[in-house]
């Protein structure tokens, strides 16, 4: 078995006084999708934020290619893209500007034709020049997801990416996920909606089971 690219060992997370989960262990290989499941308030978002490095775990470690992400620093952040439940786009900028500014802040160059093609692919061809303020919730979600495609990251961390998307949007994301895993990319995501990903290597993980006491961790299947 090959060395896992992303691995988590004995991870524990608390929010305030409450222990959300502990002793969590899992590993994700290239081409796999880790589907994080669990009810509201069980710690799915907290887990994803631990994986991005935005927050620090109470115990345990997140490793990228065998090195704790705290030590990888910029190497990890270069290979990882995160879409949280906030879109991270500015209302006063157009989708095109948002995408290009976002790329610039991540230290990448993004020329206008490429940005335009990406947005068109996500069905935003008609609102390239409108400020994001006037776009609908779903359209703004699509702008955020367009950022994933231009990031060229190996690991996608997606927090409820399907929220607010219509049927075509969901199908589009499924296609993108398929493409990404085909190329050997990794995905860690949460969703409450059913996904149809035929042929994808899905790996479910449930966070904070109902009997909270020994927060059971589920390693693959």
């Amino acid at each position, binding site marked *: 078995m090959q060395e896992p690219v992303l691995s988590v060992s004995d991870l524990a997370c608390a929010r305030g006084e409450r222990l959300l989960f502990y002793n969590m262990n899992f590993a994700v290989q290239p081409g796999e999708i880790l589907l994080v499941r669990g009810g509201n308030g069980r710690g799915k978002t907290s887990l994803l934020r631990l994986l991005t490095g*935005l927050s620090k775990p109470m115990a345990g470690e997140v490793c990228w290619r065998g090195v704790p992400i705290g030590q990888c620093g910029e190497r990890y952040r270069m290979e990882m893209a*995160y879409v949280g439940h*906030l879109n991270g786009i500015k209302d006063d*900028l157009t989708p095109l500007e948002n995408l290009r500014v976002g790329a610039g*802040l*991540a230290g990448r160059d993004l020329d206008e034709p490429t940005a335009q093609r990406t947005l068109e692919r996500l069905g935003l061809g008609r609102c390239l020049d409108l400020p994001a303020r006037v776009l609908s919730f779903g359209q703004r979600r699509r702008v955020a997801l367009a950022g994933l495609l231009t990031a060229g990251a190996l690991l996608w961390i997606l927090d409820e990416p399907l929220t607010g998307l219509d049927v075509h949007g969901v199908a589009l994301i499924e296609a993108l996920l398929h493409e990404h895993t085909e190329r050997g990319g990794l995905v860690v995501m949460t969703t409450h909606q059913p996904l149809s990903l035929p042929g994808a290597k899905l790996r479910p993980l449930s966070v904070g089971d109902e009997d909270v006491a020994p927060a059971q961790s589920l390693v693959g299947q």
Partner: protein
Amino acid sequence: MLRFLLTVIRRDLLLAARRRGDWLTSQFFFVMVVSMFPLGIGSEPAVLRMIGPGVVWVAALLASLLSLSRLFADDHRDGSLEQMLLSPEPTVLLTLGKAVAHWLIYGIPLLVIAPVLGIQFALPAEAILVLVASLAIGTPILSLLGSVGAALTLGLRGGGVLLTLLILPLYVPALIFGAGAVDAALAGTGAEAHLSLLAAFLVMSLLVSPWVAAAALRVSIE
């Protein structure tokens, strides 16, 4: 690295250009506060000349606080701050870039308005020159130290008031040397000493605050 810094600055300038209302509010506040004093105190030139430098400086501090509470808060609310923190580039450059952009947007206009306000306080030409010089050195200090406060109070309820309580004491040296420089020029003793100390304070804030603000930001975002 320099490119990232310029990207941060350019982004904030672009956003400010799109929301001119916010930008003007702060400048109008500055003009209003300063203009209230001659109206309230009366038109005795000797008195106005005495309080003028201090009033302009205090108003500059308050005007900068008004805009500082939004320095990171807007980006925090829409999630773009998270994305910037996940950038492979160092966070120090982010906080430095934000502070520089804040100075360009809110500090520079003060320098342009200040001479007009100086005339209102019957300041002689050379004192107005020193006032502008002291503001030119002093307003970057306000933006730099303010970025630390803005990062510390990010996401707190009532953060605006807390920011004021936290940052105003840190502004005191800038206020003393800034207003003192103009007073010294008025008294004819020369403003160089005050301006040099102000410049030293600027260098110190430049070296320290981006790092402190970056650390505070990482804590606030958790």
